[in-house]
């Protein structure tokens, strides 16, 4: 990319390419392949691929002739790595573009203010699903955050010996539970008390909680560990008991990081579909009671609208995309807010 820094001649070829050689080759290749693609009427994706290939070919030949084999290999490796990186971003861009593009068709006020109650074909909305997602996630968060933060406090501030090792190990295990298994667990748990076929909003919360706890623990643990020990000692030396030291010195210092971790954890579970599919079920109207009956939610809404469209199918597919857009907006807002908090309010910790 930005040209290599080292300028010592490398033996074989004694010359050196101009400092921006990589960029020059990239620019020339982009232009050349644009011309080819335009002439042949090819898609932008093909243009990208051809550009990559041209860049690689031109820089390797040029460098081989001027700088020798080793420097040429270095440039080729650099460009291959950069190209793979771009290749990894292509799906991300395509995905965001597709969701926005397809989702906007039905991303209207009706979609945000009505449910699917008595709707067949066109119209209708995802209000019931959005409310359900909010309730289910809120309950899961309310349960997972205190447990997760306290468990992390145990691991960092109190834990020692075998219990600490056991809990650390099982947090790892919990981290690896497939989300659908968490859903099955919630179902199995409630089936015992309410009988087979039970579907409740709160069951979804239990499943999400199982997924969320280990994420919150890991994030909090990491943040508590970077709080310098000097601060704990300063507090102890002032005659402050340990629990007040943790509550009023350690936690405030780590707060921004913990909040960031919690928001990322919410972002991770709010789009979970599989565990909700087997626990909350789906329903067409608004249900605000997590302890009574099925509860709609955005991920399952998207899934069902897309997978089992009625007539006309376009209406269902469009609603699915609009739901996906709403979901992705929620996730992005959470994600960006978390980063912003980390950057704005993160206390600078001297290392």
């Amino acid at each position, binding site marked *: 990319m930005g040209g290599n820094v080292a300028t010592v001649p490398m033996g074989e070829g004694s010359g050196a390419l101009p400092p921006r050689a990589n960029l020059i080759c990239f620019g020339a290749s982009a232009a050349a392949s644009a011309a080819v693609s335009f002439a042949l009427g090819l898609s932008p994706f093909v243009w990208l691929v051809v550009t990559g290939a041209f860049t690689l070919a031109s820089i390797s030949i040029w460098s081989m002739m001027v700088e020798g084999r080793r420097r040429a290999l270095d440039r080729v490796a650099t460009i291959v790595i950069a190209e793979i990186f771009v290749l990894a971003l292509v799906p991300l861009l395509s995905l965001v573009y597709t969701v926005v593009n397809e989702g906007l068709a039905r991303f209207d006020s009706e979609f945000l203010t009505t449910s699917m109650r008595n709707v067949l074909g066109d119209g209708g909305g995802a209000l019931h699903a959005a409310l359900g997602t909010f309730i289910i996630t809120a309950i899961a968060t309310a349960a997972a955050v205190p447990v997760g933060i306290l468990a992390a406090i145990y691991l960092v501030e109190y834990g020692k010996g075998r219990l600490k090792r056991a809990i650390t190990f099982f947090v790892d295990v919990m981290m690896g539970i497939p989300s659908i298994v968490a859903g099955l667990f919630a179902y199995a748990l409630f089936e015992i008390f309410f009988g087979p076929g039970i579907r409740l909003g709160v069951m979804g919360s239990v499943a999400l909680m199982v997924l969320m706890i280990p994420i919150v623990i890991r994030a909090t643990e990491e943040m508590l560990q970077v709080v310098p020990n000097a601060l704990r*000692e300063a507090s102890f030396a002032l005659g402050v008991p340990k629990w007040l030291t943790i509550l*009023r010195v350690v936690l405030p210092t780590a707060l921004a990081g913990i909040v960031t971790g919690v928001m990322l954890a919410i972002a991770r579970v709010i789009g979970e579909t599989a565990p909700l599919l087997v626990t909350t079920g789906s329903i067409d109207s608004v249900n605000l009671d997590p302890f009574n009956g099925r509860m709609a939610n955005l991920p399952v809404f998207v899934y069902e609208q897309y997978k089992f469209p009625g007539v006309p199918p376009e209406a269902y597919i469009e609603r699915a995309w609009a739901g996906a857009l709403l979901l992705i907006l929620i996730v992005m807002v959470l994600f960006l807010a978390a980063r912003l908090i980390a950057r704005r309010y993160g206390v600078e910790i001297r290392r």
Partner: protein
Amino acid sequence: MNETETMKEKEMVDAQAGPADPIMDPPASPSATATVDAKAKRIDAEDLNIYYGDFLAVKDCSVNIHPNKVTALIGSSGCGKSTFLRSLNRMHELIDGARVEGKVLLDGTDIYARNMDPVLVRQQIGMVFQQPNPFPTMSIYENTAAGLRLNRKKTKKTELDGIVERSLTGAHLWDEVKDRLDKPAGGLSGGQQQRLCIARATAIEPEVLLMDEPCSALDPIATLAIEDLINELKKRFTIVIVTHNMQQAARASDYTGFFNIEKSGDPGVLVEIDETEKIFSNPRLKETEDYVSGRFG
């Protein structure tokens, strides 16, 4: 725990807190809450052995630390002087596996007695650390008041203002920060931060102030400012200071103790303690003389 055992230990505690121990008694005389001019307390360590797990770090240390005096502890790195200092206010035991055997008497009361709350010990024996460590989430004002606030002591706002001003003035910091008390403490210079930490430690009115190489992270001018401050603080507190800097010990202290180790891996031993003047002019032991005259390590 069964009952007889409990009884036995209660007796033990009672025996320890015998009648010869005035401050163990409920405050019979209200005058015990004395004024600022009153003498600070003395510390007497008796046969202190300090361990990290199985490793003996300081061996058989007995020392009398006089009230309202500055006692400096010198010695090469790793000889246990900081470890000793941290055992004087029960900070040592915070490290996993660390423990202390022996007695440390604060005006005759053993701070290692079983019924002694380490938290209350530390409220009486404050500490200043090598690296300035103000709380990064708190302002200058909050840092100064931290000892009271973190302990949820109910203090009136006006009273707290007074304590903060007095402590910062006492730490020679008030004039520099009085216009930005609500600013974060992280914005201060290293020397100012260290003086803030001293103000924070003195705000809870301890009897003794322990200082663990308080100037080693500071430049010479900031160091002199702290030394001036120490000279003034001894009017109100008993001060124990660990230092690597022999000029500092000579300048700032009344008594000087010298820690040494035979060889690496051996426990540190307090080999000699005396009036500073004597240690630096005419020490009893050859090894002390070698060290203070720079012929050693």
